[in-house]
């Protein structure tokens, strides 16, 4: 049986505060931290879940991002997306990796794509909006 995971972005705000235009932000890794299943996150049948295969890939992406290899991290998240193409958390993480590597246009598009799988009030949809507004600054 698949484990249920919720993938939070704990350093989201700190990264966002730096802003897309700042050159310092380009080297900061995207933080991808997995948190165990929380029922409050499951809304209207739209769970943010990850199979064990996806979770292992996200852990790998996190490591790659930590050492500043955002290109490899993006490639790993794309691998995860081939397994779960409708997982909004993966699209969000891809947006975040693009953001940290300074590609705000892609970051906005991926964040929008992520929100396309979510209800407006979902916490992740809120984070997507934040990311988009930071990028637009």
């Amino acid at each position: 049986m698949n484990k249920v995971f919720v993938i939070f972005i704990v350093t989201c705000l700190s990264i966002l505060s730096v802003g897309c235009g700042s050159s310092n932000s380009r080297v900061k890794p995207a933080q991808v931290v997995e948190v165990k299943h929380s029922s409050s996150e499951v809304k209207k049948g739209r769970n943010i879940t990850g199979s064990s295969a996806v979770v292992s890939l996200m852990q790998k992406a996190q490591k790659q991002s930590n050492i500043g290899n955002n290109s490899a991290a993006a490639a790993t998240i794309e691998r995860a997306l081939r397994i779960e193409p409708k997982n909004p958390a993966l699209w969000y993480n891809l947006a975040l990796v693009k953001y940290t590597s300074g590609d705000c246009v892609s970051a906005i598009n991926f964040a929008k794509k992520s929100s396309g799988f979510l209800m407006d009030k979902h916490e992740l949809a809120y984070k997507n909006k934040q990311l988009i507004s930071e990028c637009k600054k």
Partner: protein
Amino acid sequence: MVEKKPSKNKKVSVRKKKVNTKKKLSNRVKPAAQSKSKKTKLKKGAAPKKQRSIFNWLRLILINKVSFILFVCFCIYVAYLDVVIRQKFDGKKWALPARVFARPLELYHGYEITSEQFIRELKSANYKVGFNSNVSGTYSKIKNGFRIQTRKFSFSDENTKSIPIEIIFASDSIAKINHATTGKKIDLIRLDPALIASIYPAHNEDRQLIKITAVPKKLKSGLIAVEDRNFYGHHGVAPFSILRALWANIRAGKVVQGGSTLTQQLIKNFHLSSNKTIWRKANEAIMALLLDAHYDKDEILEAYLNEVYLGQDGNRAIHGFALASNYYFNKPLDQLGDGEMALLIGMVRGASYYDPTRHPKRANKLKNLVLKIMLDQKIISKQGYNNAVNKLVKAVGKPAKKRKYPAFIDLLRRQLKTDYDEDDLRTEGLRIFTTLEPYLQYEAEQSLKQQINRYKKRKNLDGAVIVTSTDSAEVLALVGGKNTQYSGFNRAIDAKRQIGSLIKPMVYYTALDNPKRYTLVSKIRDEKIDLIDKKGKSWSPRNYDKQYRGEVSLLDSLVNSYNASTVRLGLDLGIINVIDNVKLTGIDVKTKPYPSVLLGAVQLSPMDVAQMYQVFAANGYRIPLRAIREVLNKDNQPLTRYGLSLKPVLNSKTVFILNAALQKVIESGTAKRLSKQFVGTACGDGCKIAGKTGTTNDLRDSWFAGFSADKLGVVWMGADGNEPIGLTGSAGAMQVWSGMMQNAHIHTLSGLPPDGIEQHWVDEETGFLADKHCKGVISLPFDKDYLPQLSVDCEINGFTGALNKAIDWIKN
């Protein structure tokens, strides 16, 4: 000392004399006789000794001068050879072909694939039956699954190891993956990808480079023992060996032995022709000496191991031990047995003559000879010798010479062309990772072939198929024609044909994107229409069944592909607006806004159509179709990554509404035959697919474009000469689509609407809001701000309807 002085003076005088004589010769004929008499006089003269000494000196000086010039020339020549040999060694030693790989198969719990398809994947990656934990690339079928010894492989992000795994299937998906020895659960494993093509340098030289440190010691020692025992002792040339060979050859009366060192052989392979001339031998010797002076023995040996010619596969030349090992035995060098190693060493003497696939007896004899030398030189043990000498070495079947995926490779090369020179592709040893799914490619090819075979009498019938993933737009399969191994005309990319009704979704998208004015239940007129252009030419599009229904809803018009109502709608919207929306999907449509465009009088390829429908399938996001994931250099460093990129180009809410209508095309419209065909497949009985059929005038083109949640497919059938083929979209192309997608593990489309879209029950006839328990109602998506204004009281649909209504009332 005393004598030398006058000689100098004489030298000058002789020179002067000579010049004078030449002048005289040029002026007159007579002096020739004079000079002759002078010569005679000199011979008979009083001081012949003195004269002789002059001539001796003259001769000596001339000889010295010529020698000196020759020496200088020789030095220049040697310097030239030195530059040549150093350039060859220091720079790029070999032109390396580019390797093209399919997508690697990622296995995890829940991955959907049948056992047959899985075997096909393993075979395409050259896995051999017969699991052996000592031999990578082997597998066996076990109860409910497979046991596999994977291969090690270098990806851009990791080097995977060869491990034994056990995969358990539950129906048509993977239930469990364990390490076959430890039993440890494996979450995800990426198998080494199938090599689907190589882009060869000139002369089709193929090789895999190997470092000297990775070459088994036995192989190195064996080669030296057989070919050049004093390799580490000589300076590139072994004079005694040459003399020994010369003596043996004289005794035999023919060439029976060679005295070339490994260094000389390497030079021969590098630069020179196989002509056995003295000149070539001399060149070889000089270059060998130079090479030996400049480089380590191990460097020279490494070059030899990579350069040597070891066989021929069609027009592909097999060079180097690493490739030969894979080619003949399907194993890396370090997994070769003693016998196999001995055979490869022996084959250096004549790769064609001792080819184990064509001359197994001769090859085994040679193997035994080499084994004996290896035993004598104590490179192998007596036991090892006995084991190998009695075992017949078998070369595995040669790889298929047929071109496997010509249409896909064609697409790949076109996409690579934008970033890489043709020369680099052929020589730099690039590693190209593509998106091709071998099992799905097989399903697409088979389905097209089967459908075409059903109409054998229509000799000119052909087709093309493209399958992509909906959310990443990776090209998973591409078929360019019924002859799937023919690399000629690639219909999937180059057949630009009228697309007929496949354009209609864009007409309806344009309408629905103005929700204030159009919803799925809005009524439009379906009446005969006559249009006259500026030149007075009339055009009267008719419905396929030649019937007109007066007034129809947008939904009905699209689902049943009515022409008259679509043209009326398009004219109302503005043809140019429809064309602009098509362009937004990334297609370069070059057409004037003629009304016929509204019925698909636009010439597009299956690939173009796929790009357009990709935007529908991805909820309004345009993602360029990709055949390449990344390109690495020969040292495995990433050069280009073709990452996912997307852009919202169409309104996702409108696309959701349109897709709901395209699902109705399959549920109850022109493609309703399709929905029944998916009952019982992995997609489920209520499998939701969106799609559209397309048929052009006189049944010249048969089209179908459709998508599930995860895969998009576009199929075209027609004749290259544009003759009628007698097939509608649903009778031809749709059947090909169905055949392949039934085996493609597609997933049903999600019915969950995005924010701002609400699902409502409406009366089919009036389009008014209605109770879901009523007769003749249908659930449709609407922009929440533009719901139908009116509702209708309707007849409850029988006893069940009444009961359900009562239950709903109690619940609320």
